């Protein structure tokens, strides 16, 4: 079967290429008329789905207290060593709270391990992807920046529960 006609063998019209080139050009021209996919960033912003892993934040309950009990698991599991927790005692039911909770956003790799390991659902990944800082000190986010009210994180918390 030496002379078997292969699929690769081109017929005469295909071999002179002109027709094929015109076909290709028609295709690119059609593409020019299709709607554009560009989002014009500062005006139009991407609204991420619940599964999106933005910057990690601490959940703040309605009474203004964080859920975190300062167990330090997130700090332990963090592959980039970005999290630093310092525990202290409190009169509340949970008995412990983080006196200091810092995430170094220059180190964070957005892996979401901290969220996975957290027994209290206290640290979750938010939808916030606009992380800008102009020096290294600003990149270390303390509790003031990390605490986000629970209402703003509903999407993510529901998403997490659907997998439990």
């Amino acid at each position, binding site marked *: 079967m030496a002379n078997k006609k292969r699929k690769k063998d081109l017929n005469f019209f295909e071999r002179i290429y002109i027709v094929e*080139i015109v076909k290709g050009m028609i295709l690119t021209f059609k593409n020019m008329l299709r709607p554009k996919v560009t989002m014009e960033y500062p005006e139009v912003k991407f609204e991420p789905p619940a599964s999106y892993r933005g910057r990690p934040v601490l959940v703040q309950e309605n009474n203004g207290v964080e859920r975190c009990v300062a167990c330090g698991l997130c700090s332990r599991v963090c592959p980039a060593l970005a999290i630093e927790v310092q525990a202290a005692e409190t009169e509340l039911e949970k008995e412990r709270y983080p006196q200091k909770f810092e995430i170094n956003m220059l180190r964070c790799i957005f892996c979401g391990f901290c969220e996975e390991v957290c027994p209290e659902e206290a640290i979750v990944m938010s939808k916030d992807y606009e992380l800008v800082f102009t020096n290294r000190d600003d990149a270390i986010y303390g509790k003031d920046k990390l605490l986000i009210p629970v209402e703003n994180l509903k999407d993510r918390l529901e998403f997490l529960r659907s997998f439990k």
Partner: protein
Amino acid sequence: MGIWEIIIITLIKILIVVTIMFLTVAYLVYFERKVSAWVQNRLGPNRVGYKGLLQPFADVFKLLVKEDIIPDAANKPLHTLSPFIALFVAFATYAVIPFGPSVNIFGYDIKLVVADVNIGILYVLALTSLGVYGITFAGWSSGSKYSLLGGVRSSAQMISYEVSMGFSIAGVILFAESLRPIDIVNAQYGWMWNIILQPIGFITFVVSAFAETNRLPFDLPEAEPELVGGYHTEYSSFKFAGFFLAEYANMIIASCMIVTLYLGGWQIPYIDKLGLSETLTVILQVGAFIFKTIFMLFVFLWVRWSIPRFRYDQLMNIGWKVMFPLALLNIVWVAVLIMLFNL
């Protein structure tokens, strides 16, 4: 007309043409970025000025404020000279391209062409051949293997395709019986456009023009994956801008040549039957020339995003084994046409 009047009129024409050329080159870069964006379903530059219309000036400014680097291994005089050769050749070629018929202003009969040379086509061929020197010198004098390879490829490619280009033009000249661009345009009166009379010649000329201007699919001299930047690898700042401008100016020249030789130049079929005033006719005809040129430029960009780059041996095969015989065939075809119909 006295000698001074001729000089002043010519200077004014040169001024207008050079200004338009620079603006066209600037906006061609903008247009190319827009077209490539559209093909890829993007928006393209739209931030600098209204709809991004000031983008070319921002680009040029960025290039000019960069550091001008001359490598240690470079041959300095040639390294500096070559972008200017490329630029000079690109802009000088435009002198013979007619963009409209004669026009009567203030009692002067002015031809809408900078220099009405009776061997204009030869002049264009000669200058485009000179353009090879800019690129080859740039490649050689940079003292870098990538540049050298780019330069060598470019000279080989341009010399090969010049042959089929010359033979394609021979067909046009046979019809017009003149080397003067204005005569060639006049010979394409009505629907006697050369694209209709000699389609094979049109195809060989267009392909050769693509190869001559080093545009995709024939942009081997600057094939990024293989040669970094090709002949302009070692150039930066103003000199790089020179090559950049020259490449785009060459594209405009090529489009103008295609329009002049094959698409009837400034001719609009049957416009003289409409009974329009003389001024309006001239304006429409110049507009037609500009429209046709812009369309050809669009085709240049369109092809760039449709057809992948050829391999070097494929390029040479097409040049010598396909385009050259086709161009010869075209001459035979034209000769037969002339003999049969006494055109």
